[in-house]
């Protein structure tokens, strides 16, 4: 199998590799969001498995445990747990990333606990003491894992894990760099699948696959008529269907700021004398809307502080338009969206802001709006 085929296979059978490794005697840790450092799990020799929902299945069991006005992604993940689809997890770690994930930790813990369960408190602020606090929280998680696994870890193991994850980040950035080409050698949907494929296997295996995959992509011949180049912003997209819908409508998704996309790997962990501090710093600097940037200067400067990196993305990737995919009931994204729209409009980037229920049924209904948006861009481009 080529690496491209293997990644596709892993995307379609997301739990397969983690289950195989469990059969071989390894332990699997399920965790939410990109705010939980995978390096810590790697250092313990645990298989990190980023929890995913299913946009294809209806949420049919979770209603007895969690309100419908909660994030449908989180509800879907728990629905899968209730159906036994996450029974292969040995540990469950949730960050206090947002109100719903915080609440779902308790619901999960009481109704479908793993052998080891942990809530990681992630500060919302980034200044004064936040990194020290987060470092202490990570040390507390490590202590819990040491007790649970019966194995201590040392700084050397953490350093190797950081090094490995940084290698992964480098490779993914290389992949994203290729998307600067016009047309890019990989579609947005394929990139999404490659990202999701890497969420359920040891980092070392993913690194090896990515190295081979990038070689394969390098030899691809691409061509075709020019199409509008789009940037996607939002939260959890772990199915390629939405991106596919956009690309079938006549556009290319060339860049993103999603917690399953660039947000999850863009910045490296610095490699200094205090690896835990390095991890704390890096993860707190992830630009998730749930984290706060203290206001400095006027409105214009504030938007630049918060979204400057997106400004760089749209410029470097020559983006013609942006689509926001906001999962309904995500308060932080709902509050961030209009600000980011203002910022991008100022840069001349048209924005389509969509709110959705994290379901293929509802995604299909977005087709007309996407087509109208692309027509509008097409007239401008």
């Amino acid at each position: 199998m080529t690496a491209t085929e293997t990644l596709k296979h892993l995307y379609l059978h997301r739990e397969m590799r983690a289950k195989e490794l469990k059969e071989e005697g390894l332990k699997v840790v399920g965790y939410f969001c990109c705010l939980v450092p995978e390096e810590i799990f790697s250092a313990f020799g645990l298989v990190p498995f980023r929890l995913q929902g299913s946009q294809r299945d209806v949420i049919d069991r979770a209603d007895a445990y969690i309100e419908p006005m909660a994030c449908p992604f989180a509800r879907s993940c728990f629905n899968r747990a209730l159906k036994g689809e996450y029974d292969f997890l040995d540990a469950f770690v949730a960050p206090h990333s947002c109100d719903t994930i915080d609440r779902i930790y308790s619901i999960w813990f009481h109704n479908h606990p793993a052998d080891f369960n942990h809530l990681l408190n992630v500060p919302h602020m980034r200044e004064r003491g936040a990194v020290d606090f987060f470092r202490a929280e990570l040390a507390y998680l490590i202590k819990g894992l040491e007790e649970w696994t019966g194995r201590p870890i040392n700084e050397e193991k953490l350093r190797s894990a950081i090094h490995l994850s940084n290698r992964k980040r480098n490779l993914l950035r290389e992949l994203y760099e290729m998307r600067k080409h016009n047309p890019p050698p990989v579609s947005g949907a394929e990139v999404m699948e490659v990202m999701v494929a890497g969420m359920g296997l040891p980092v070392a295996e993913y690194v090896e696959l990515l190295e081979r995959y990038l070689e394969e992509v390098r030899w691809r011949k691409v061509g075709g008529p020019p199409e509008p180049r789009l940037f996607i912003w939002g939260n959890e997209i772990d199915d390629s269907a939405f991106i596919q819908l956009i690309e079938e409508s006549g556009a290319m998704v060339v860049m993103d700021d999603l917690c399953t996309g660039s947000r999850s790997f863009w910045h490296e962990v610095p490699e200094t004398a205090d690896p835990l501090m390095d991890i704390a710093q890096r993860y707190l600097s992830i630009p998730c809307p749930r984290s706060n940037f203290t206001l400095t200067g006027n409105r214009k400067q504030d938007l630049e502080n918060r979204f400057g990196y997106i400004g760089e993305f749209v410029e470097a990737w020559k983006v013609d338009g942006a689509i926001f995919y906001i999962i309904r009931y995500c308060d932080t994204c709902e509050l961030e969206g209009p600000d980011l729209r203002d910022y991008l409009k100022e840069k001349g980037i048209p924005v389509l802001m969509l709110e959705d229920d994290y379901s293929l049924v509802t995604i299909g209904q977005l087709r007309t709006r996407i087509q109208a948006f692309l027509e509008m861009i097409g007239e401008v481009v």
Partner: protein
Amino acid sequence: MGEKDQIKTTAVKGTQTARLIREMVKNIYRSAHEAKEQGKKVAYFMVASQYDEIVRAMDVVPIPTENYAGLCAAKRDMDRFLLKAEEDGYSQVLCSYARIGLGFDSLRKELGGIPENAPDGGMPEPDMMLGSSAVCDPRFKWYQAAGRYLNVPTYSIDVVAPPVQAELKEVRDYYIRYQEEQFRGLVEFLERQTGKKLDEDRLWETIKLGDEAWRLWYEIDRLRVAVPSPMPAQDHFSIMVAGHYYCGTEMAVNFYKQLYEEVKYKVENGLGVIPEEKYRLLYGGGLPPWHTLWIFNYFESFGAVFVIENVYRGYDPVEVPSHVRDPIKYLAWRAFLRFTQRHEEAKKNSGHQVVERLLKLIRDYKIDGVVFHACRSCRATTVGQIHMKNLLGRYTDVPMMQLVSDMVDLRDYSEAQWKAQIGAFIDALKARS
């Protein structure tokens, strides 16, 4: 249900003291306007952020933006603000407090002044905004977003609490240290904004007043274990104004002293909220339906009284160790102790600190039924209610019900549905009695 249709009634015997609250609410916004005229600093602020006494000690006049949203709903004047925020791009499922606040700010900017006939004179433009991560995420994101309409300095702090499963001995020091640093950051910000240094004696004074108000409020609630209930939930949703919007002031302490005396008198003389108290209810959680507070009277028309609530007074008084001599450290300790006061009990029993509190309330207040209010736009107080109901059900067999609407957005409310649900709930209470 009974043969005849139950109708709206007014509260039969609420407290007289609670009626003073209306004037105190008006005073919040009047004082803010006056302060602006006098050149004093005025701040948008979030209640229960544990920083109230600091704000008071710095003589910054607070404008509680969430309260303003509730006020608009109580006066049924919220639609123009909600719709304005939605027109500006905010989702219809976003926190409706935030939508009202943002819509109000948007309109004020557009009109160049307070929107016409805004409830209680409206909110003046603040000199600063003070957000926090206490309770929910929108409480700092909202003020960040409000930067679209207000060019004022904004500062938010983290307010942290460990999960029940954490070993408190192991996490306490770094939680308190971080909380203290967060408060110190706020103090520095306020010092820059006001141009004056924090007076620690003055801070001790406001802390003493804040603690005393909350102790009295706790004592009042303890009096409410009496049968018949001396004070209804409608009063609770009024009198919380003193504890939250006047925390750290003499006014709050004096108010609760007066209320304490009245409630005590009612208890001693057996004066209940309604003539015949058949069912004693616990308001299990969720923000109240500010748009339809008469619904509590509707319950009373069936002989059902809400005797205690699990919202707004979320913690009992705590004892900060005497070695803590610094007021900022004191506030950090107090926050930690407040948030963790039921952790150890919960660990031994239900594993959930709020469930633990509810179980205690059910026992102490001789509760016959529990009602939750789910708000479509409030994740923080809504998500987890079903879970709590499920956990409670493992320890008690009292009937429980979840009503669904929103704290301020009337579009999420259906009177017919509520009446049908309440009717069935009353039947369940009847069947048990």
